[in-house]
C-alpha cells in the first residue's frame, strides 16, 4: 500500500515533514497505529540499523531517521493510549552516574523505539536510585545502561546492586554497553548481557524479551 511505503521511505531518509504527513494520511485512511508501526516504522528502522552497521549510514542519518520516526509516534501514541493499546515492551535506558556521554545511548534508544518498544529514556548521569525508581514506577522488562569511561563503569555494578537491594533485580533483565565495556565485565557484575554496538543492543533486547 502506498501509504505504508510513504512512511517507510520518509523514515528511511529522515524526512520529518513527510513522515508526519504520511502518518496522518494513514490514520485518515483508517490504518491502525500498529499497522503503521509494524509495516512501516519497524522495517524502516531495521533497515536504518542495517545501513548503520554496514557503515553506509552514520550518526547524522541515524538521528534524522529517529527524528522522523518520533514525529510519526507523536501522532500514533495518543491514539494507542486512547484505545488502551499496549505501546510495546517497556525498556528503561540511561547513561550511568558521572557520565554525560549520551550519543550512543540515544542511538540505541531511537532504534529500540523504532523497533516497537516503549522506551523510557532517563538521560545521562543517572544515579542508581533513579534507575531503581524507574523500575518501580514503570515496570520495564529491560534496563539498558551505557558508560563511555572506564571510571564510570563501576556505576553499572552499583546500579545492579541497588536493584538487588530494592528487591527488583529479578524483575528485569539488565544489559550494558559503551566503548570500554566488555562481555567479561558484564559477567563480572552480574549483568544479563552486553553489546558492543547499537544494532547488537537492539537484537539482544529482542532476544531477552522473546525468551521471557
Amino acid at each position, binding site marked *: 500500500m502506498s501509504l505504508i511505503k510513504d512512511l517507510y521511505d520518509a523514515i528511511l531518509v*529522515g524526512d520529518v515533514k513527510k513522515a508526519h504527513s504520511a502518518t496522518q494520511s494513514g490514520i485518515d485512511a483508517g490504518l491502525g497505529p500498529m499497522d503503521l508501526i509494524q509495516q512501516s516504522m519497524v522495517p524502516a528502522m531495521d533497515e536504518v540499523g542495517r545501513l548503520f552497521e554496514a*557503515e553506509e*549510514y*552514520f*550518526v*547524522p*542519518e541515524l*538521528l*534524522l531517521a529517529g*527524528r522522523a520516526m518520533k514525529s510519526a509516534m507523536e501522532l500514533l501514541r495518543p491514539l494507542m493510549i486512547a484505545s488502551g493499546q499496549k505501546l510495546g515492551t517497556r525498556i528503561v535506558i540511561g547513561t550511568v552516574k*558521572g*557520565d*554525560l*556521554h*549520551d*550519543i550512543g545511548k*540515544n542511538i540505541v534508544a531511537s532504534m529500540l523505539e523504532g523497533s516497537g518498544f516503549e522506551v523510557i529514556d532517563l538521560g*545521562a*548521569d543517572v544515579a542508581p536510585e533513579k534507575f531503581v525508581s524507574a523500575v518501580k514506577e514503570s515496570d520495564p522488562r529491560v534496563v539498558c545502561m551505557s558508560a563511555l*569511561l*572506564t*571510571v*564510570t563503569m563501576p556505576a553499572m555494578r552499583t546500579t545492579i546492586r541497588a536493584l538487588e537491594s530494592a528487591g527488583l533485580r529479578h524483575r528485569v533483565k539488565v544489559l550494558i554497553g559503551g*566503548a*570500554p565495556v*566488555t562481555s*567479561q565485565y558484564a559477567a563480572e557484575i552480574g549483568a544479563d548481557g552486553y553489546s558492543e554496538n547499537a544494532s547488537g543492543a537492539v537484537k539482544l533486547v529482542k532476544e531477552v524479551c522473546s525468551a521471557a
Partner: protein
Amino acid sequence: MNSRERVLAMIDRCPVDRIPFMPITMMFAADRIGVKYGQYVRDYRLLVEAQLHTAERFDIDQVSCISDPAREAADLGAEVRFFDDQPPAFDESQALLVDKKTLAGLKIPDPLGGGRMHDRVKAAALLKERIGGDRIVEGWIEGPCGQAANLRGINRLMLDFIDDPAFVQDLLDFVVEMELRFARAQAEAGVELMGVGDPASSLAGPVIFRQMLMPAHKKLVDGLKAMGLRTRSHMCGSTKRILKERGELGYDIIDLDSMVPLSAARMNIPGGVLLGNVATVEVLRNGSVQDVIDAVTQCTRDAGDLYIVGAGCEVPRDTPEENMLALLEFARSHKPGAMTVVA
C-alpha cells in the same frame, strides 16, 4: 639518539635507533603520582609532574599537555562539569550554542588570559623548561568537529550537518581560528608537536567529512605547519571510511583507534606515519603481557616501517605496569627495516 630526535627522525623519514613509543597518558599519568584527575586538569604543575614521572618510568618519547576537551570551551564561557577524579564533561542540555545565534557574538579567548587555555600554555612552558631537548613537548588542541560538538552539543551538531550546513561552516571557521591561536601560544611556550584531538569526526560519515570537515582540518593543519609545528592527528573511533582523506590532510603522525585495521590504514595511507593501535581495554588493560606483545607485533606487521608504538586511544587507568612495560620493551627492542630486533 634521544626521544625528541627519534620522533623527529621518524617524522622526517630518517633512520631511527628503535621504534618510537608515544602512548597517550592522562588519567594513567595522574594516578602514577597519586593526584586526583580533577586536580590534574586544573593545575598545570601537577600535570607536568605526572607527565615527567610517567615519561621517565616508561621511557615515553613525548611529554604532553593533553588533559581534556574542555579548555577552550570553558574560556568561551561554556558550562563545564568538573569531577573529583575523572575528566571534565559537557552537559549538552546547557551547551554554549544551544541557541545558534550565540555564535555571532563569540570572541576568541586570549590563550594568555588567565583561564584554562593559559593553564595549558604554562604546562607547555614548564615541560619545555624541565625536559629541555630530551623529549619532544606535545601540545594539544581540539579538532574542528570535536570542538564544534563541545560547543553545540554533539546530538545537535550531527543534525545541523544536514539541517543547517551554513551554520556548521561558520562554527567550523570560528573553531579553526580559535585553535590556531591556541596552538600559536603553545608553540611560543615551547611545544614542537601539536596533537589535534577530534573524537567526533569519525561519527559524521565520509561524505560530510569530505565536504565540511576535511577543509576545516586542512586549514588547521596547514596553519600549524606554517608555525613550524609537527602535527599529530588523533581521531577516536572507527575512521575506516575516511582513511584516504586522513592521509591527504598532511598530518605528520596519524593515530588509529583499535577498531581500524592497521593493514587498511597502511593501504590507504601508504606513506604516512601510523601510530597505534593496541586495544586499550581488552588488551592493554585486561590482557596478559603476551596479549600485548602479540597485539603490537601484529601492528608492526600491518603498519610497516613508518610506525610508532601506541594504544588505540588513551591508556586506561588501572593498566598493569607490566603491560605498559611490555609495550615499551617491544618498541625498545625493535627498529624499522623489516623489524630488525635491536640487540
